[in-house]
């Protein structure tokens, strides 16, 4: 049983590996066909090559930085906030201790 079991584990994971070796090629084949229809040989050649993850990450960071640093339009909203103390009984002059009659005397 041990040998059979180990072989079946290998077989199932081998088939999984095989399937996911083929799927990216099938997906990129569709893209290549689109470029083929457009007649763009340069793009067609690129479509088959997988882009390394770190290249994608570098491109993503560059785009993100570029978009975040764009500042060609101002929103025209003033961001200076008025600093004012709102009324509460605690800062009221009416209830201030100075007004205490006994204290005034």
């Amino acid at each position: 049983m041990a040998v059979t079991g180990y072989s079946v584990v290998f077989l199932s994971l081998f088939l999984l590996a095989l399937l996911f070796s083929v799927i990216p090629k099938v997906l990129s084949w569709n893209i290549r066909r689109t470029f083929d229809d457009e007649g763009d040989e340069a793009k067609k050649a690129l479509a088959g090559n997988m882009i390394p993850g770190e290249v994608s990450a570098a491109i993503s960071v560059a785009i993100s930085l570029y978009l975040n640093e764009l500042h060609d339009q101002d929103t025209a909203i003033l961001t200076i906030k008025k600093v004012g103390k709102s009324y509460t009984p605690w800062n009221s002059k009416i209830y201030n201790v100075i007004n205490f009659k006994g204290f005034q005397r």
Partner: protein
Amino acid sequence: MDGLVQFLDYSGFSNITPGHLLMILVGMLFIYLAIRFEYQPILLVPIGFGILIGNTPFIEHGGMALGIYEDGSVMNYLYQGVLKGVFPPLIFLGIGAMTDFSPLISNPKLILLGAAAQLGIFMTYIGAISLGFTNPEAASIGIIGGADGPTAIYLSSRLAPHLVGSIAIAAYTYMALVPLIQPPIMRLLTTQKERRIKMKPPRSVTRMEKVMFPVFALLLTGFISPGSLPLLGMLFLGNLLKESMVTKRLADTARNAMIDIVTIILGVTIGASTQATTFLTRSSVLIFILGATAFMFSTAGGILFARFMNLFLREGNKINPLIGAAGVAAVPESARVAQIEGLKADPTNHLIMHAMAPNVAGVIGSAVAAGIMMSFLL
């Protein structure tokens, strides 16, 4: 006066045995390892505390329904989730919602390392048979080599429910000790030159591939090994919830609140199931020894197969054999060990992303192995 005597009879002091004391020390050791060295604290703290709960002495079957093995006790109800195999699939749902299969999709040949690292399961199965265990017991013990706690609990609850506690404790203990068990084997089976191999960076994976993976992987593995469906079904469902990007709330719940709740209950009940009166037996000791052997064989299987694959791979496409050790499922601990060992050989060589591929493949491989064993033995 009679009441006081009866009270004292029921107290822990009059029911304590050396076994209880030993297990209380083991529980404290688990808690110490988790807090002091941060060895899998999410698992070891609940398990360690569960050991304390399960080994606080009391009169068993004294009418109070306290023990985990007593019908009607609260702990017994919670333990049903382990015995009936309910908790492991729920944990797999959460794991699926956490797991990124991109490293595996980007370099599918690394999946084979996850298969090779199941060697320990089958070698230990043979070893357990030769030590006198029955076929179902041997299969349940062997699955410890898959280094996957939920899978070990699931299979043993189906095939050998009386060994669930020992097997689960052994599996989780060795998973926590992966940083101690694996490095000597990794260094023994690889040369310095091999440990320095730099692998090509993984390519980026499209969303389409990520969505397709759980669907096709489930169908493929499920058709071959239907016994693994409860585990792999939930694993891949969790992953689809994550990768589809349209069920964010469900994925968040699965990978946070739900898996945390199940982990707490699972950990405590597994710990409490180590009640000294039923746990401290010869077979528990043998299970611990066989479990360690299983881990070592699995680690060696992954490394040696990576070296074997290198015989057929062109220069520049070679695999660093250290990542073969990550084929044992213990996610992500064994991948981290591969990274650390790789950095020791070359401080500029980062293997973690590559190691994650065999690591998650190991989860699939051990679940498939469990399914196969069930189909053979049930």
